[in-house]
């Protein structure tokens, strides 16, 4: 129906000479939209993608692959659940290793609507190697640290600032506004509002530590 209406509109523009933009047609006549299929061998039959998938912000976003067929690209990440999305992104490989060691892949992938603060490889690099190895070997501590990076519900940038109770149980605090946010006063959001099928991701430059 919408296409038909616009055919009529476009036909009208042909002889009205004063060409105006078609404007936004918000007709909710039951037509759904779905992501265009990709051509790469790794592309999947896809479900509907969120319309706001490209409203990411932050200097760190430029490190994310731009080619839509790359599994680390924003477009590819938006199609799959969060742990799968992260595993396609080379910036997050240490985090992905940690998530696998803690056995949290399925939990993150099948949680409905969460926000993940995802430390980059460089963030993990700030931790002395001996300490990092110790944490990676201790499933309980690792689980506690990782779940401290997850907040229930998808937080949009507008509602990001403030205190949020994490899945670990402790609160984390986000300060800042616009495109400039810090978590717990130390970790900066380097690339924010990355969409995955079930989670909104804010990529940060330091690993967060729970108090308890």
């Amino acid at each position: 129906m919408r296409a038909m209406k616009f055919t009529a509109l476009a036909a009208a523009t042909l002889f009205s000479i004063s060409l105006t933009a078609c404007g936004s047609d918000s007709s909710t006549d039951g037509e759904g939209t779905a992501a265009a299929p990709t051509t790469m061998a790794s592309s999947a039959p896809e479900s509907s993608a969120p319309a706001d998938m490209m409203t990411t912000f932050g200097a760190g976003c430029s490190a994310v692959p731009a080619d839509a067929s790359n599994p680390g690209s924003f477009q590819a990440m938006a199609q799959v659940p969060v742990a799968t999305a992260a595993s396609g992104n080379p910036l997050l490989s240490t985090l992905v290793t940690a998530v696998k060691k803690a056995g949290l892949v399925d939990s993150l992938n099948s949680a409905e609507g969460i926000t993940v603060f995802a430390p980059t490889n460089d963030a993990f690099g700030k931790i002395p190697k001996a300490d990092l190895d110790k944490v990676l070997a201790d499933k309980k501590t690792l689980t506690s640290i990782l779940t401290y990076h997850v907040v229930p519900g998808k937080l949009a940038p507008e509602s990001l600032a403030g205190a949020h109770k994490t899945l670990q149980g402790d609160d984390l605090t986000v300060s800042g506004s616009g495109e400039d946010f810090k978590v717990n006063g130390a970790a900066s959001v380097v690339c924010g509002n990355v969409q995955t099928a079930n989670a909104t991701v804010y990529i940060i430059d330091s690993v967060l530590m729970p108090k308890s």
Partner: protein
Amino acid sequence: MRALAGAAAGLVAAGFGVATAEVLAAATRPAAGPLIAVGGAVIDATPTAVKEFAVRELGTSDKPVLLTVIGLVVAALAAVAGIAGRRRRLFVVAGPAVLGLAGAGAALSRPAAEPYDVVPSLVGAALAGLALWWLLRGGDRTSGVRVDRRRFLRAAALVAGGAVVASGGAVAVRRSVGGARARARESVRLPAAADTGPSVDAGLLTPNKDFYRVDTALTVPRIDLDGWSLRVHGMVDRELRLSFADLLARPLIERPVTMTCVSNEVGGPYMGTARWLGVPLAPLLRSLGVKSGAEQLVARSVEGMTIGTPVATLLDGRDAMLAVGMNGEPLPLEHGFPVRMLTPGVYGYAGSCKWLSSLELTTFDQFDPYWVSRGWAAEAPVKTGSRVDRPRPFARLTAGTVTVAGVAWAQRRGIAAVEVRIDDGPWAQAELLPAPSVDTWVQWRYSWPAVAGPHSIAVRATDRTGAVQTQSRATPFPSGATGWHTISVTVS
């Protein structure tokens, strides 16, 4: 005659031509309208990267923008034809002819095209040419002496008026046809199944509104039942064309079947169970005489999707069908109205084409369907799987008896057992609820004496051949994900 007047003549004539072509198409074959046809052809010819860019940047206004651009291009060409046509009458013929042939060619390129789909564009072009000729008549080709301005304006107004009336007619016709089409699904009365199959508990079914949808259609096709038919052709002794009424006149079966999407991750949501009503496919194919060597049935949708299924799979006794009903109502538009294929035990991309327009019997060598040409497996039996639905991941629970519950599936083979493991403990048998057939998922539950602390819950299924679901992790690409669904919870 000045250039401005020439341009105006071109625009007015083109508007008249397009509008008459559209009203003609609206009244007969909406898909043959030049604007929609050219738009469709442009979308098909656009590289995927550009399409993704368009969807990303323009969202749902991608198609209005496309149609506007097409309109602008036509307008520009028409203005040029009008200006050039003042001195060289060749352009008065060539301009409309080029546009008309473009529209006709685009209409023919559509997946469900019929030869007569060229008519609206060609008639529109002829009328535009005549109108342009008439508007430019009397203009002096050699001296460029100004034609009577008043006469020209009168003529232009007349043609423009005709264009407005025709486009108004096109809108009105489309509205009534579109409305009728929206009503068409509501007016469908499905006959009862001749063979209703096993009864099924409502709790096992996924409501239509919650049923997952994974496809590549930019807009949900709305199909005119009167113009729709299903063509069965290729390696058969006798081709067949069936109308919707023809299909409904055949004996129907109704079966509960669980559909699974190949891109579903371990524990993912892209599966659902419905009662499907349809025409059994195997007897239909056999009645047409499938030629020896026909290995693959390629189903095509009205929007150009192709899905291939092994003929041997379709003829092995499973309830593959041409589905017309879902959970007691006509197929919802987004699930393939009026007819979709349904192949139990095969991932949707390899057996369950929606918005069906044709079925072709061919070989695997002859044709790679859409997803297969993108590297996905040509044969795609659903892998045995299981999922924890309760409790939810990261749930905070109270110590005591916690009911762990979920589904397990092994379509065609059936589920023999489901086991649950807490942390690194032993596997414990879960209780299976009755399932209507091997083609549906099975609900299971397990009473867990939960003690305080962080815990992981894993599940695995065993099918009726005795094969245990593999622990080995596989990604959805190229033939479906595997691994034991394992979730974390905290008990206090």
